[in-house]
């Protein structure tokens, strides 16, 4: 009676945990939604979720093409970027990342990072001036350009002049990757002194479509005075707060899961995150104001990053002088531990050419390092076989007193200097390794849209193939909790097998927990990226292979690992 009560309780609790887990996993460990779905046995790409259109200007929303056609522009052409600079307002407001595609379809357009005001998902960068004693150029100022196209090695200079004679110039250059260099100058051609101050801003009409989570910052981001700041969130700005950082060197901007815009002026700045009057999210800086006597010129320089957070690139820009730019990836507390793992994974990927194979190889290396621990365990087990008679004697003698029996066996181990238990340190060491892998797979844009084999077209997303709708033959999309992919099922199956090859628990209650664990794991792992599931499966298969090899090497049998039967 009591047993069945416990069983019902266990079932109800498990169901609650599973339901809660799906909710919690999506909230706290969001992975990319599947990039493909299976329809009639064919895999088709899923369109990216678009940011909700919010008008940034009172004007009705227009299409990008309409806006682009109706404003004077300088084209941007580099190996990594395509887009244009809007001469009205001197804004960089049209930018595509040529090396990154919107979806995994072959004909997919590239990722659109920046989009002009008045279009859905407007996202712009602007460099300008604040002025006293004269007019400053604003969003309606139409600048003139000295060239029609901006390419690496061929900068463009924009200029405008106020009626009283102050000349503003903005020289924009770009490299082969994602960095613009913006040199601004103001020349006082008027007959009275003026006060000017260079400013820069990035403004986005909407939040990122990527979820913000405690394991990865999405939203406002920056480094101020040598310290990375991941603490300002959309919510803070929604509540009307302005987060200001006064007189500090550094950089600031907005990050999506994989994309980043960042302003890095030279010298110290006053940086701010806020929601401006049109409801757009804004990161801006102002440099120290300077008073210009007639004829004097003020020049300032800033870098503007707009692109994908590829770690080698971020490192390069950091070395080139943007302070702590590599912190644009939110590695969290274990930064020092993540970096070598990430670098190794990236090296394997570039060497082997397939990200899935790289993950498998990385797992092999980690397990190779752990191998001596398992080997030592088996040596102990082999030695233990010789002690079987003594062991039996103890079991006989303390049949009634399990605790005493346990104690005596431990004493025997101690006397013989053997122990089949590996201790908790190896387990505790594996936890950060696993977390590092999770984190590395979470933040690396390098894994985005990377295929493995067969139906796995994107390792950074959930497994799209699920038996729940008969692998796509039935036309319905199961709810997230039921959409258990094929990979997580493999995770459970391999986990079950590997646990069978480990010493079994002595306590019957614990044995029960052991029996359910692998199937529980299927649900636990289901919401994660396919890359992480691939790691787990490989890990389990290696455990199975390792145990099999060691059993043979030491001539042991499974029963030898279960020394204490109760």
């Amino acid at each position, binding site marked *: 009676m009591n047993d069945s009560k416990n069983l019902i309780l266990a079932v109800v609790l498990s169901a609650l945990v599973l339901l809660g887990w799906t909710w919690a996993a999506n909230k706290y460990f969001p992975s990319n939604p599947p990039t493909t779905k299976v329809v009639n046995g064919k895999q088709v790409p899923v369109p990216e979720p678009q940011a909700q259109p919010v008008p940034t200007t009172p004007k009705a929303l227009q299409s990008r093409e309409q806006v682009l056609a109706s404003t004077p522009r300088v084209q941007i052409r580099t190996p990594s970027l395509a887009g244009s600079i809007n001469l009205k307002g001197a804004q960089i407001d049209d930018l595509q990342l040529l090396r990154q595609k919107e979806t995994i379809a072959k004909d997919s357009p590239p990722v659109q990072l920046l989009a002009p005001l008045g279009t859905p998902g407007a996202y712009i960068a602007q460099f300008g001036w604040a002025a006293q004693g004269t007019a400053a150029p604003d969003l309606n100022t139409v600048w003139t350009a000295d060239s029609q196209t901006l390419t690496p090695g061929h900068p463009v200079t924009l200029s405008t002049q106020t009626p009283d004679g102050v000349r503003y110039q903005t020289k924009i250059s770009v490299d082969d990757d994602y960095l613009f260099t913006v040199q601004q100058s103001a020349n006082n051609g008027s007959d009275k002194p003026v006060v000017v101050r260079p400013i820069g801003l990035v403004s986005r009409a909407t939040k990122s479509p990527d979820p913000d989570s405690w394991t990865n910052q999405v939203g406002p981001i920056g480094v101020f005075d040598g310290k990375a700041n991941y603490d300002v969130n959309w919510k803070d700005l929604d509540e009307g707060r302005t987060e200001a950082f006064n007189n500090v060197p550094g950089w600031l901007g907005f990050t999506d899961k994989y994309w980043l815009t960042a302003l890095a002026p030279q010298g110290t700045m006053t940086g701010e995150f806020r929601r401006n009057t049109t409801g757009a999210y804004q990161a801006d800086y102002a440099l120290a104001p300077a008073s210009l006597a007639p004829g004097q010129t003020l020049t300032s320089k800033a870098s503007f990053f707009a692109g994908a957070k590829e770690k080698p690139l971020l490192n390069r820009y950091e070395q080139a002088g943007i302070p702590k730019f590599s912190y644009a990836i939110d590695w969290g507390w274990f930064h020092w531990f993540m970096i070598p793992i990430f670098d190794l994974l990236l090296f394997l990927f570039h060497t082997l050419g397939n990200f899935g194979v790289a993950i498998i190889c990385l797992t092999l290396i980690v397990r190779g390092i752990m191998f001596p621990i398992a080997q030592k365990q088996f040596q102990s087990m082999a030695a233990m076989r010789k002690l079987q008679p003594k062991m039996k004697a103890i079991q006989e003698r303390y049949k009634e007193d399990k605790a005493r029996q346990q104690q005596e066996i*431990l004493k025997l181990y*101690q006397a013989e200097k053997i122990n089949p238990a590996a201790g908790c340190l190896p387990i505790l060491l594996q936890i950060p390794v696993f977390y590092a892998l999770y984190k590395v797979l979470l933040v690396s844009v390098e894994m985005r849209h990377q295929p493995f084999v067969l139906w796995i077209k994107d390792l950074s997303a959930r497994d799209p193939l699920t038996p729940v709708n008969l692998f796509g033959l039935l036309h319905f999309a199961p709810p997230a909790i039921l959409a258990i992919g094929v990979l997580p099922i493999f995770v459970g199956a391999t986990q079950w097998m590997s646990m069978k090859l480990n010493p079994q628990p002595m306590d019957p209650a614990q044995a029960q927990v052991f029996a359910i664990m692998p199937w529980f794991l299927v649900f636990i792992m289901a919401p994660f990226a396919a890359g992480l599931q691939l790691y787990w499966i490989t890990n389990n298969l290696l455990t199975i292979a390792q145990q099999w090899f060691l059993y043979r090497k030491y001539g042991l049998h499974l029963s030898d690992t279960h020394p204490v039967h109760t």
Partner: protein
Amino acid sequence: MIAQLMILVAKAWQKGPSQVLPPSCRYQPSCSAYAITAIQRYGAARGGWMALKRIGRCHPWGGQGYDPVP
């Protein structure tokens, strides 16, 4: 306060991960039980340090057997 938090972590370990992991204790009492006693007896700093040292010994080349908190 910190001591209580640390004890809570140790207890959570016993109730959670420890239940589903293969039995691995080389010592008696287990590392988590050792940590709880040590922190109760010597406070967060010293007790915590003792617990860390105990975990540091708890590997295939470390010691084993009965090893109570001094």
